[in-house]
């Protein structure tokens, strides 16, 4: 079969009292790709996942898996015939079955006797756990068994629903790396649904940002972070410093001075709008001449770097995240310098 692993076009879905949970979604997952759908809770991520898996009807639009239509006008393929591997939150292993029976659940009787189950457990680094019960595994191990179970039947697409959110912060990144490794090794195509921007940016080949039932932006993690489509996306995917400004000839006049702006069309007239910077683009350094215009309010030491909160003359506060520990104290005057270019968002009515 040809075509992308998943292709969603113009998808609408919802509930009787809330019809537009998904208000026209387009999403494409290339073969072997891992796409993260990032959105705040209540934004329709889970509904999207349930429509793709076949547990929720599509009101309009089409869903194709590997080029095969599974949902569309007058068409609804039941979940058991979609060849989807589902990895729900907290694993959802069958508590009455052993690890081996869990992994072999979607296989035929003959396949279950073969070496497939052992291969899958090896893939997720749990060889030898066959006879354990789910209750005897740690949260991370359960999650990996759930991935092995989803991969065993060689599904067209693996759906991961916030799979790491139930794990401890320390364990999360470790399990995340193991799962991504297993997905790569199996050559699986996958959709990861999450509200955690770190997870989406650090894990996926492509990130699709879902907001109020619409896809606001789709792109590589770098694009989403560096070139967000709007201030909402910018604030959602990372810490943002937003300053009011006016633009002329590719440079914005802001409370911290002139800031070079990327890919702005250099119109002659002043254009008012907002400037977006990331805290790591800003540096605060001691500057006695800046008295009255920029004052240190707070210094937070993180180990690898330091956050300096600076209050500007008009009460606006900006956060600078810098590798060095500047020799300043709260109340000292500082100068704020900008590294790299800012993003420009013209004022909207």
């Amino acid at each position, binding site marked *: 079969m040809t075509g992308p692993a998943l292709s969603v076009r113009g998808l609408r879905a919802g509930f009787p009292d809330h019809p537009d949970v998904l208000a026209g979604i387009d999403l494409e997952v290339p073969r072997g790709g891992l796409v993260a759908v990032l959105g705040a809770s209540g934004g329709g991520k889970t509904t999207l996942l349930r429509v793709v898996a076949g547990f929720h009807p599509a009101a309009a639009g089409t869903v194709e898996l590997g080029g095969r239509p599974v949902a569309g006008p007058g068409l609804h393929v039941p979940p058991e015939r979609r060849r989807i591997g589902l990895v729900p939150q907290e694993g*959802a292993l069958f508590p009455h079955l052993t690890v081996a029976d869990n992994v072999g659940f979607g296989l035929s009787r003959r396949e279950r006797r073969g070496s497939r189950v052992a291969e899958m457990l090896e893939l997720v680094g749990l060889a030898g756990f066959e006879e354990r019960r789910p209750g005897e595994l740690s949260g991370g191990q359960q999650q990996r068994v759930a991935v092995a179970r989803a991969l065993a039947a060689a599904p067209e697409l693996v759906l991961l629903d916030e799979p790491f959110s139930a794990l401890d912060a320390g364990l999360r990144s470790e399990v995340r790396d193991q799962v991504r490794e297993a997905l790569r090794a199996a050559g699986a195509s996958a959709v990861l649904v999450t509200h955690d921007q770190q997870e989406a940016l650090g894990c996926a080949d492509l990130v699709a940002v879902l907001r109020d039932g619409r896809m606001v932006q789709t792109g590589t993690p770098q694009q989403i972070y560096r070139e967000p489509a709007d201030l909402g996306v910018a604030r959602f995917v990372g810490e943002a410093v937003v300053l009011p400004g006016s633009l002329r000839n590719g440079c914005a006049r802001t409370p911290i001075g002139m800031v070079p702006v990327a890919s702005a069309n250099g119109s002659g007239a002043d254009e008012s709008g907002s400037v977006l910077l990331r805290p790591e683009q800003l540096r605060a350094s001691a500057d006695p001449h800046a008295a009255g215009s920029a004052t240190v309010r707070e210094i937070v030491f993180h180990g690898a770097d330091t956050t300096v909160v600076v209050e500007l003359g008009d009460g606006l506060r900006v956060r600078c995240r810098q590798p060095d520990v500047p020799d300043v104290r709260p109340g000292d005057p500082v100068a704020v310098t900008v590294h790299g270019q800012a993003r420009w968002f013209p004022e909207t009515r």
Partner: protein
Amino acid sequence: MPLVYLAVRAGGAGPERVLQILSGPRTLELAMRSIGLAAAVTAACVVIGTGAAWLVVRTDIPRPRVFAVLLALPLAVPSYVAGFTWIAEAPGLAGFWGAFGVLTAVNFPYVLLPVAAALRSADAATEEVARSLGYGPLRVLATVTWAHVRPAATAGGLLVALYVLSDFGAVSLMRFETFTLGIYTSYRGTFDRTPAAVLGCVLVALAALVTWGEARARGRSAHRTSSGAPRPPSPVRLGRWKPVAVAALLGVVAISVGVPVLSLVRWTATGTDLDLGALAAATLTTFEVAALGAALTTVLAVPVGVLAARYRTRTVALLEAGTYVGHALPGITVGLALVFLGVRLVPGMYQQLPLLLVGYAVLFLPLAVGSVRTAVAAAPPRLEEVSRSLGHGRVATLFRVTLPLAAPGIAAGAALAALTIAKELPATLMLRPTGADTLAVELWQHTSVSEYAAAAPYAAALVILAVVPTLLLQRITGRPA
């Protein structure tokens, strides 16, 4: 179905006749007796059951586990066995107080078990917060703790009230004429069965009223709002009250379990002409009808329970409500209705095993549906979705995932049904196949001619048979949540 027929049968005699029966002084007298007895027993059971549950779960009473088991045991003593032993030991007890004592002694575990479970699952934090806000221990008990157990106590109280209304054995032995006994005597005593049918309808109406009242009174049940694992509270120190508490619990156990057991042992020992063959036959019959009846009930309950837990549509809600009407159906009314129905529609079925089993299914479906629904609801639907995404259809998923997960709960429902069927008397009395007498029927026949010594072995066998599922149930419901 049987109900409709009963109503038709009653109405068929003409409105004047129905009115005449309804307005007769006898009907009113029976109603007052039934209601009075139900109210008194329910109140006593709520007090004893809640108090005992609190003592066992929340205080430093010695050997709480042993008490927990002992206090559940009265469930294994059918009301008519308890009644029989009391009347055999002290014939002077017959009447209201005898019936009241017997029914309270055997029914209080229906309040105790759910209240104990609720107390176990209660979070200490809310009680501690109340204490820190200046509430004394007794005030906390009366406000916070009681609010937590009130739904459980009310539900248990409802069960008790329904059991008392539909009880036949104890009141007949205590010769305290209530509705059920009135129905039976008018059914047996005359060829005109209209009075029996009319009284049966009134009894159903009464039971339905109690169920409706409970649903109204329950209102919104309180749910735990905080997340995280609930922490068990530290036990209350009884101090110098400890001997009093122990004595009270021992007294309850002695009256509800000790008296019947000792009495049965004594009468069995004095019995001279023990017919072992008949005893074995009756035991076997009881076992057989209980197993078959429980199997049929459970098989019927699984689809209803699964639908009720998973698909909340109007039809399903109606279906479920329909089975709960059965909750309010006294055994004697179902028996009566099935007799009328059987004689009229399928004469060949009357006094045959299938009709008896249908009667049991009608009576005890609510019990089984309740436990199936709870068990299925506790199985996460996400697991079913995973199974479907792995290529198994709805039916395959039901058999491979849902039912195995719900198996313990379904088994508990089946055990409960088997226990109740083994103890059931009035419907069995009316519908049993000729010659196939269960332990309960044999016992009742002997006691009605005051052959206490001959009856005792049957009672003893019945209690022993009933102890097994009771202990099983106590283990399942008593497990800390």
